[in-house]
């Protein structure tokens, strides 16, 4: 009987004792990266290459979203906090402040390229060329009519403008937690609604409310974080349009087509040259305090900023990254490899 008691006690003790050795490990052997799900496919390609070509272990990447990543990143300095965070938008003033409060003083900012957000439908549906204001008129809760804001009356695209297809308005897009949605709001919705004089003359907060309130009568459908899902919806519903990242368009050309925006098609050339109106920059941030402490960070940054990685013929382009023009690439490479810290004033204004 006693033996059994001991056996059970020993098992419990063994389990509770398990972590004590490694949990308190002072320094990690492995780089830890968190952040945007948009940058995730590119960053994973780089770490894989990095892991196979260098003596360092392959870094671990968590896909937490840009905001979630920066929150973890700014939580402090030390092995229990991530070394690098990816973001599909630039760091915000509030996040810089949080970083500083938690002792994360020096951060290296690296711009890696661009990503276009496409407005696409099934290849069975009509070709179209939208103005940003058409898209906003299709999505907003209230639109200007005869000098005042009224509840969105548009049922079909042709109601908005007779040059557009006579199809019911149905749009699938990302939820508010998504970085794609942030970029879409800023570039497409704000861009489109400011073209109306009566809105452009409003105060900042009123304008934001008028521009970014989506209609709730079923024409706008939030389809979840998963872009694959939106692509599938477009295949089964040829009337519908979807909002997602360029790389998904690239991989599904056989079933979906992207609409032109303001007459510009989302191609690598147009996005890279800043011609396409709905494109955003992708970034990553490195904690300078960890450089030289966690092995391999220098080598990782070097791998990421190689021409054969992020250049026009690099392997990230194959994954759907839109490369920066050469001059910008050189400038960012230099900043990144020297770990020039970000000037907080630049963000805080």
């Amino acid at each position, binding site marked *: 009987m006693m033996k059994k008691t001991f056996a059970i006690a020993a098992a419990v003790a063994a389990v509770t004792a398990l972590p004590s050795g490694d949990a308190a*490990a002072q320094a990690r052997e492995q780089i830890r990266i968190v952040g945007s799900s948009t940058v995730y496919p590119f960053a994973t390609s780089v770490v894989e290459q990095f892991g196979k070509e260098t003596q360092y272990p392959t870094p*671990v990447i968590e896909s937490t979203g840009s905001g979630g990543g920066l929150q973890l990143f700014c939580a402090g300095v030390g092995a229990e906090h991530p070394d690098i965070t990816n973001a599909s938008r630039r760091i915000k003033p509030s996040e810089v402040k949080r970083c500083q409060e938690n002792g994360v003083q020096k951060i290296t900012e690296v711009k890696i390229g661009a990503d276009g957000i496409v407005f696409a439908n099934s290849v069975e549906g009509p070709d179209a060329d939208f103005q940003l204001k058409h898209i906003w008129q299709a999505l907003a809760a209230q639109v200007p009519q005869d000098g005042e804001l009224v509840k969105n009356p548009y049922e079909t695209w042709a109601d908005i403008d007779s040059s557009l297809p006579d199809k019911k308005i149905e749009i699938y897009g990302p939820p508010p937690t998504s970085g794609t949605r942030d970029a879409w709001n800023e570039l497409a919705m704000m861009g489109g609604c400011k073209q109306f004089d009566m809105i452009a003359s409003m105060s900042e907060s009123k304008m934001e409310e008028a521009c970014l309130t989506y209609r709730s009568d079923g024409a706008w459908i939030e389809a979840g974080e998963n872009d694959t899902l939106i692509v599938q919806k477009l295949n089964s519903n040829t009337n519908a349009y979807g909002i997602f990242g360029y790389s998904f368009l690239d991989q599904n050309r056989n079933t979906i087509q992207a609409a032109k925006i303001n007459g510009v098609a989302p191609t690598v050339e147009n996005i890279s040259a800043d011609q396409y109106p709905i494109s955003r920059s992708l970034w990553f941030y490195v904690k300078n305090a960890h450089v030289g402490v966690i092995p391999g960070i220098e080598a990782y940054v070097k791998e990421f900023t190689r021409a054969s990685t992020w250049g026009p013929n690099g392997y990230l382009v194959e994954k759907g990254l839109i490369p920066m023009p050469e001059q910008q690439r050189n400038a960012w490479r230099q900043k990144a490899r020297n770990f020039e810290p970000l000037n907080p004033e630049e963000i805080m204004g």
Partner: protein
Amino acid sequence: MSSTANTADVGMRRPDLSAQRLRKRYAAERRFRLYGVIAVVTAIGMLAVLLGSIVQNGYSAFWQTQMKLTVTPTAEQIGLEGQPTPENLRDTNFRPVVYEALFQLFPEVTGEQARRQLRGFVSGAAARDIREQVIENPSLLGTSFDVWVKTDDKIDMLHKGYVDRALPPDRRLLDTEFIQWHDQLDARGRVEAFFNTTFFTGTDSREPEQAGILAATVGSFLTLFVTLLLSFPIAVLAAVYLEEFAPKNKATDLIEVNINNLAAVPSIVYGLLGLAVVINFFGFPRSSPLVGGIVLSLMTLPTIIISARSALRAVPPSIREAALGVGASRIQTVTHHVLPLSLPGILTGTIIGMAQALGETAPLLMVGMVAFIVEVPTSVTDPSTVLPVQVFLWSTSPERAFIEKTSAAIMVLLAFLIAMNATAVLLRKQFERRW
């Protein structure tokens, strides 16, 4: 007098309807059975559709398209310095060898642009695979030999018939050149589909043709190991105490209600708890099977406690009374008689709890196990991911080839679940006692 008149009246007013009523009752019973059959058929039909679509999408992932290259690696070409020892060979680059062999297959492809495109025909893993072969057998260096290497995932999709050749080139997933090259090689017998061992021996990768489930499977085992080690003893002790020793009062009632409530708490809540307590307070390593296992054992504890308690309750009181009657102490009664008799039931509950834990992703999201991890974890503190998370990560990847990988990983996960549930059923059948 009046009573007989009454009955006669009643008899006259009520014709004999029993046959009709009987028919109605039988009809109702037949209808009820029919509804039951329809319900079962619907359930089976849905299951069949689910499994059918998974198998249909996923079976092709167990094959991998490979191409035969005739390579002639020379020390100069691979940049070998010194003797061809394994250490020196590890620093070499076999990519020029692969490209050279590729260009020899298509001498008509000239020009920088076209040749760069042709390089995309073969997987990035090809050079590493050939290097491994040469490391194993250094005498191959300087000789010409045939080797089967993986093609790129685009070619794999083409070979498996997922690329619609009838579409115009700008809509097709693949450029016309690749289709021509593939068809030429196919005609020469140099392209073939082999069983995809990489899927079982490889780890996560951004290149679909190099992606496998080994790291996730090992991660799942380590996580479940921690879960089992923690939740089984705690749950059994709790159940035995509550059932056999604890007094029945308000306090134990409260505990019982709470255990039942815990079983219904959404699993993400345990993830949040794990993040706050296990990682932030105790400082256990993020993304590790240890943390995942602790979180999942919190989740499975109520399930096991509940099933263990009902298994203990199913042991008839006469057993306990007999044991006590011949002089056994209470703890002897429990450990010698009640517990062994209820063990099959407890194990069944444990296996079902484990199967639940195996399929869980939501709580693991919070503790950082939803991550891209290439190295196979070797201990419970290494960063790791689990099978259902691997399914989730692949399902969000844009590449067409990941669709079949996703379904194939689901098939493997289902196989594990079926095996575990079958064990539970077998245990019950084998050891269950009827009293």
